[in-house]
């Protein structure tokens, strides 16, 4: 790989970010000599206590959700889809119906079984909350992976080759962009929930978690691919690319070996933000019945299931809603911290735009 002279010269941040900011004044408090851009970013991130705290909160939620099977087996003694409609539970020495004869589910018991109460089918809310979190996060992570992978490929190809390739790819991105994300997600979600997805040897059944993941992953591609395309368009005119070309490297090696490493900071900044967006969109689609399919829980489906009982059993919507807010807030604030650490001027730019 040829060294990007701009990056090494600036030393204040990776890739194009660093080049563009080569002329700015250095913070005298930052001992940057001999420190790589990512290490410098990490140092800045460490000083951002708020971002770290929210990152830790998100991590905690992820760990809790990963522990769902342990909680279900050893504390709640029930699965996420196990119905207990006519069962009873002892709370404070009193036997109570999990679901009353008029269909009202029990509220939080603050004990192992039905810690946060039950839903209309007598399913343990706490267990479903954790399993739902696993599903929501899994969809969020896989969708982000799909978005980033395809967006980087499409953005790089369009930006590097320009011309006809760019014309076709950019128009396809425009086409996806033209549809409101939620509407496109609902349209795809409801149609694919019935027959699933068949792509050659790959078949996803309609109720597979991967269906909403693929849908969300696809609808967000333009939001990442377009900035990457713009960045590559600028980057391909840089001297280090010319140098690589002159040295006989083909387009594929230039894209993989020269351009991709310089996109890393952009990708890193986008990652947490896209995860947050994907989790939110998954919740919205599941709420509208076009995301995670029943009886599998997700925070969105749990909110939808609880809506009709809000006045009498608010916990059914409040608990998954609160988890959703905390998870998205956690990853979003952490993502902002990562962006500020890798590209401090972005914060200034945003503040200027807002101002």
């Amino acid at each position, binding site marked *: 790989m040829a060294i990007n002279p701009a990056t090494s010269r600036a030393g204040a941040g990776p890739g194009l970010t660093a080049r563009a900011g080569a002329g700015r004044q250095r913070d005298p408090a930052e001992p940057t000599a001999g420190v790589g851009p990512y290490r410098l970013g990490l140092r800045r991130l460490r000083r951002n206590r708020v971002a770290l705290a929210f990152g830790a909160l998100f991590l905690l939620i992820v760990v809790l959700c990963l522990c769902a099977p342990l909680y279900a087996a050893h504390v709640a003694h029930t699965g996420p889809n196990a119905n207990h409609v006519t069962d009873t539970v002892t709370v404070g020495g009193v036997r109570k119906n999990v679901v009353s004869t008029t269909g009202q589910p029990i509220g939080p018991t603050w004990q192992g079984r039905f810690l946060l109460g039950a839903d209309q089918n007598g399913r343990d809310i706490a267990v479903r909350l954790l399993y739902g979190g696993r599903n929501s996060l899994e969809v969020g992570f896989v969708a982000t992976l799909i978005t980033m992978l395809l967006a980087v490929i499409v953005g790089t190809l369009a930006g590097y080759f320009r011309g006809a390739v760019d014309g076709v790819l950019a128009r396809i991105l425009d086409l996806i962009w033209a549809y409101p994300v939620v509407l496109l997600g609902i349209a795809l979600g409801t149609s694919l929930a019935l027959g699933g997805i068949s792509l050659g040897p790959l078949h996803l059944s309609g*109720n597979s978690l991967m269906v909403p993941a693929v849908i969300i992953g696809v609808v967000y591609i333009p939001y990442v691919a377009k900035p990457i395309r713009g960045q590559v368009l600028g980057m391909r005119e840089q001297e280090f690319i010319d140098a690589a070309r002159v040295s006989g490297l083909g387009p594929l090696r230039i894209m993989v070996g020269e351009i991709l490493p310089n996109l890393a900071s952009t990708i890193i900044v986008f990652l947490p933000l896209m995860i947050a967006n994907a989790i939110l969109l998954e919740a919205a689609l599941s709420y509208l019945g076009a995301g995670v399919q029943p009886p599998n829980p997700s925070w969105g489906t749990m909110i939808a299931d609880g809506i009709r009982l809000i006045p009498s059993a608010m916990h059914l919507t409040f608990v998954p809603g609160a988890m959703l807010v905390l998870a998205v807030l956690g990853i979003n604030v952490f993502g902002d911290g990562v962006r500020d650490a890798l590209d401090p001027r972005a914060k200034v730019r945003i503040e200027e735009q807002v101002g």
Partner: protein
Amino acid sequence: MMCTRTRSASLSLLALALAATIAACGGNSNSNSGTTGGSSGSASGGTVTVLMGTAPDFLDPQLGYTTQSAEPDWIVYTPLLTYRHANGTAGGELIPGLATAQPTISKDGKTYTLTLRKGLTFSNGKPVKASDFKYTIQRAIKINWGGKSFYTTYIVGASAYDKGSAQDISGITTDDASGKITIKLTQPYGAFGNVLAFPSSGLVPTGTAMKNLSNDPPPGVGPYMYTSASANRGFTLKRNPRFAAFKIPGIPTGSVDTIDVKIVSNTQSEAQQVLSNQADVFDPGDTLPPSLLPQIQSQASDRFARVPIPSTFYFFLNTTKAPFNNAKARQAVNYAIDRQAMVRLASGFLKPSCYFIPEGVAGHPTAPCPYGDTPDLAKAKQLVQQSGQAGAKLTVWGEERSPRREYVDYYTDLLNKIGFKATEKIIADAVYFPTIGNAKTDPQTGFADWIQDFPNPSDFYLLMDGRAIQPTNNQNFSKVNDPHIQQQLDKLNPVPATKLDSVAGEWTTLDEYTAQKAYVAAYGAESMPKFFSNRLDFGAAIFHPTYLNDWTSFKLK
């Protein structure tokens, strides 16, 4: 809603009404200050406000096909035959309406003869003629009533009229002078008396425009008449001053003068207004919000009831493919199902039953369930093992709307508990039945229900008739094609509706046989809410099995 009330002409009454309005708008009013002021305390007269969360599909009698349209149309457009205004099973009895007596049916069951009562007039004063009946049926066909196949299938010449190859329905002949009406059928059809009792068969004057008249409903012969109608906003019924003179036995003339129907945006607000006595009637076609149930039961227990209607809710078990082509696998489901759990999922709006013919319809069995009245999971698991179907993969189909989604969630979990590997497929309500009724889908099992078109067991056994299996819009979801059932249907279906009692025992035996065969896992009949304000006499009001709240029985306290 009640903040915009009709004002009285009298200034003093205006002031009183204003005071009542302010009181009602200011909070819950438990007094008898009525929606129209002056009528409170009287045994008849006054205005009743009915709230509907779902608007009627049409107010035109030859187009209306939902419960919301049938409720008013039943009392505005009286057909030749109609139903007794009574609660429960008695309400399923066919009585002469505009006809002088029950029809005379030929020996081959293919010719019905009736005579129109003399001296009848429509609400606009126009005399009723026998030929108006023929015109009414032609109108229902021409403007495409949703159930017109009941006419086109069974009345000679109706199909040709529908296709446009005939100008007239040759199978109906009328004589205006004598009032004689003769209807020839293509085949014997015992439930044809029920067809004659549809509100769509309620007479309208010859010459009524062949178009949707929902915003200006045509005149009819009934205790009430439409006086105003506005799409999706509401409509008003007033007592028909001419009707009382006809003295038709069994059809009440009504008690309240005006029935004001308002369409509200959501059922939460609808229930809240009735609970706080700002409106009088919660339409039973709407689902009472479960979140308000505890409040309604504690504050309004004397004016709220759950009334079962003739309907069957069940899980179909496709008898033509694995695993339910195995009798033991089907029996296992019937052993396992906990009907009390289903009642709770329905917030109490379900009356448990394991039989296909529901309570309130002739032939409903009263014997204990063949696979037990309480669930037996151990036996069910054992049967699944014996059937060799343990671990069989199943897709359970269901609708989105509540509580049907909850039923399917429960059922899927139950199937997994007894040894199958079940997953769910929930699809939009609007496409659910066409999807599962399509041969390409050929579903293994899932949710199904049937709410009677009319109180006749043959209406339910259409779903068990092997001849009804078709590639699209199939209703026999279990694909039952049992020679014994076919033989019995051939015998029982032609029995006229007016003689149902004579064969009720045979229907019972047939339904017990069906339950024994476990072709479906039936779990009960839907209940509907009878929920009034404290201004109405709750006990006197009839909840009809077919047309729900009988508005002619509304009486202010």
